[in-house]
């Protein structure tokens, strides 16, 4: 045990003297701190802006004047996706997905004003968040610090002296691992502090935060082991450096970009325009509301008349126009849901394929874990879309019901001819206040952890494989030292 500690301590002593290593470490810690501070400030700011816009939209809706309920269906509502506290750690796809949707009757609009379309190409270089620093930069700095950790001893022959002093290879490697692991832990510190702050001050959920910490620790441990193994196997320190930079470029930069191409090519999705057209066509096929003899709407009329036991629409106790609006909205909404489900399924298949590449790139696996635990993955956005659509349907139907109950059929028919009827169809604006506000239900901690789990499992698998790799390295070292 003592020898292990000595080796680790010796490693740190050497590193303190290594100017490149210290510079790299200082730079990473500084960046990590800057990333954490700006990211937290930015998250708070964005979330506050969205909350303010949401309040403004709620106020506008509640304060709308007396109107025909169908006017309110078209006036619609705006909903904004709140930004979870952990987005300050990993902003995930937040900038790539719009954060506001305009909800109105008969139509399903897209989520708009995502940051990526509002930024120059710079945004595609990566956003400086604690997650980005740890995912992309920390491994490279670890490589710079550690590529020579074993190879150097072998090149200089000092490794034989160590053995002569009775240090076993196992202890040597464990000591070196601890030495480099200590540096990795130091790199993790600013991010850990940021997570602690988010949990303590911004009520970020505890378990997902711990999972993030565990995931990033496992990720850095993977790189520590990779570096030790490469440094033990390589004949020269430079070969180790080249090989490690190659592995880094492949798994951190290249594979995450190639995987999406494969996923897109194998699971193409419909564009918005095609979806729009397809929905319109389906609607026409189901029932043409513009055709007075359309079988679907004739059947609906018959059914309604029978239900209320009357002969004519005029005799219905409710406004037939409102009932028709309720029925029509049911049709369109069902189609919206069907097409959205198909779209979501295709996107899930795409993401699944990309995640599978995580088996050969720990960075992809870590990103899955990180975004899911932070609540900034695509699943979170889909939740928002699904809830917004459910809310849209609910308020539109509530307004259609108002048309059916509070506006009479004859007033509705005569509103364009009779100024008195036109006045009467504008119902009491108190009714708008009775429409509930949108409340986004964030995924529970358990759900976040469940979606993040595959990423963690892949990382643990990597650790297990690299544990075996260490044995191999030890054997090689024994044979060559």
């Amino acid at each position, binding site marked *: 045990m003592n020898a292990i500690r000595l080796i680790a301590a010796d490693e740190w002593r050497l590193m303190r003297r290594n100017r*490149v290593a210290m510079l790299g470490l200082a730079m990473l810690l500084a960046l990590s701190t800057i990333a954490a501070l700006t990211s937290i400030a930015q998250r708070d700011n964005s979330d506050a802006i969205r909350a303010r816009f949401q309040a403004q939209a709620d106020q506008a809706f509640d304060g709308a004047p007396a109107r025909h309920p169908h006017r309110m269906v078209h006036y619609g509502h705006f909903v904004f996706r709140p930004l979870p506290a952990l987005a300050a750690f990993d902003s995930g796809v937040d900038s*790539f997905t719009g954060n506001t949707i305009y909800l109105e009757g008969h139509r399903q609009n897209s989520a708009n004003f995502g940051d990526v379309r509002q930024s120059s190409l710079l945004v595609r270089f990566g956003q400086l968040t604690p997650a980005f620093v740890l995912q*992309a*930069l920390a491994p490279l700095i670890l490589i710079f610090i550690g590529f020579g950790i074993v190879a150097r001893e072998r090149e200089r022959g000092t490794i034989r002296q160590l053995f002569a002093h009775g240090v076993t290879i196992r202890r040597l490697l464990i000591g070196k691992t601890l030495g480099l692991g200590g540096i990795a832990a130091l790199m993790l510190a600013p991010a850990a502090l940021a997570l602690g702050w988010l949990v303590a001050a911004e009520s970020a959920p505890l378990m997902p935060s711990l999972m993030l910490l565990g995931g990033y620790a496992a990720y850095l441990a993977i790189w520590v082991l990779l570096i030790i193994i490469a440094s033990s196997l390589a004949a020269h320190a430079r070969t180790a450096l080249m090989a490690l930079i190659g592995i880094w470029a492949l798994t951190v930069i290249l594979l995450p970009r190639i995987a999406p191409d494969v996923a897109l*090519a194998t699971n193409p999705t419909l564009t918005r325009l095609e979806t729009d057209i397809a929905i319109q066509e389906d609607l026409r096929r189901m029932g043409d509301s513009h055709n007075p003899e359309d079988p679907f709407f004739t059947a609906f009329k018959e059914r309604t008349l029978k239900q209320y036991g009357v002969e004519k629409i005029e005799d219905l106790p409710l406004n037939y126009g409102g009932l028709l609006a309720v029925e029509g909205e049911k049709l369109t909404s069902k189609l919206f849901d069907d097409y959205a489900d198909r779209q979501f399924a295709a996107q899930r298949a795409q993401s699944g394929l990309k995640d599978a590449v995580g088996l050969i790139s720990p960075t992809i696996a870590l990103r899955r874990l990180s975004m899911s635990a932070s609540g900034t993955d695509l699943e979170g956005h889909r939740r928002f879309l699904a809830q917004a659509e459910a809310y849209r349907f609910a308020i539109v139907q509530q307004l259609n019901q108002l048309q059916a109950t509070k506006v009479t059929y004859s007033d509705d028919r005569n509103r364009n001819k009779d100024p008195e009827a036109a006045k009467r169809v504008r119902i009491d604006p108190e009714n708008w206040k009775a429409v509930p506000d949108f409340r986004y239900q964030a995924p529970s901690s358990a759900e976040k952890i469940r979606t993040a789990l595959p990423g963690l499992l892949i990382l643990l698998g990597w650790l297990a494989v690299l544990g075996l790799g260490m044995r191999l390295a030890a054997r090689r070292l024994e044979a060559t030292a």
Partner: protein
Amino acid sequence: MTGMWRHELRLFLRQRLALPTLLLTALLSIASVWAGMAEIARQHDTIARIQPQQAADVAAIAKWVSKEGDAGNAAYYTFHATWDSPSPLAFAAIGQRDVAPYILRVRALGLEAQLYESENYNAELALPGRFDWAFVLTYLAPLFVIVLLHDLKSGEREAGRMGLLAAMARNERALWRRRIAWRLGFLLAALLVPFLIAAVLSGAGALNIALFTLVTIAYLLFWTALCLWIGSHGWSSVTNAATLAASWLVLTLILPALANLAINAAIPVRQGVELTLEQREKIHGGWDRPRAETMQAFFKAHPEWRDTEIPADGFSWKWYHAFQHLGDLAAAPQAKAYRAGLEARDDWSARAGTVLPAVGVQVVLHRLAQTDLKEGLAYQDRVREYHEQLRRFYYSYIFNEAPFKETDFEKAPKWNVG
């Protein structure tokens, strides 16, 4: 002279890292060009695919609208497709084309609520950025330059050949020039040949291809110069490699990310949401405002319809279109401010590009490939123009109270693919 060049070539190719690096570069270049061409082909296909669908959609609307011949219905229900075809060089630098819509349907109602629609795309796949040729050049090519040049002199020194080389070479500078020329030349060929073939196949203009090539050469020369400068300190190969890789990290990842952070913080753009909220209040307030007031304001923008009769009450398409357009006019200041904010962000990025080579290369390549934010805005301008044509087209029926017949659907302005 040629003998010495040939000799150096043999030496270079015998190096352990030389051939694998060049092959890898060529492979990545080919793969990225292929992936980019496939993506652009997909986009062309999509644009072609929507045409018959769009035509069928319009035909179905024409069928029932023409029965009554109400031009208001035609304007309300007919969507018109617009698209932004990829430029010949888009395959090399896909840019914003994967996150900004390149097809968009608009109708003659308020435009501001339609213009900022987004596309259904998988954000998790867009997040890491595309694997295109610009990526290979900007991020990976410098690494290959470093691999080939970090030990140019230190390698010889470490092998103990430095003194010998200096003594034997008639002209030592020429010797190093030859070595650098071979390394850089092969690397450039590996990178550029796949690009050039694809560019010619795509029908790109000679000037643009030449500019792409020049930018590529300049960028690699920058990295070569950096390698030589780092190498001139007499450090070991390992130190050179580590220092160069660290420089790469700072220049291609850290500083651009910091610049993005600073630019977006310095130039906030919230007007997008503000303008949509504003436009919607204005449009829907239209139902409640005195009709004469609305028409007065509209006639200021469209004096040619000043003399048309508007019914005092009851629904009227003329009135409806008047307040639709007034909604756009009310949101115009925010729309302008929004656009100015986006342009300012883009301009500052270009300025960052003058000091950060990686950013500069990206800015220039995407400008040449017409896949940057500017092109997105230019597309929006074209949609604005087209929307104006559409409005005027439908106005001529609505305000003249002319019937809209089935054949009139074909007379609607066509999206100009220029």
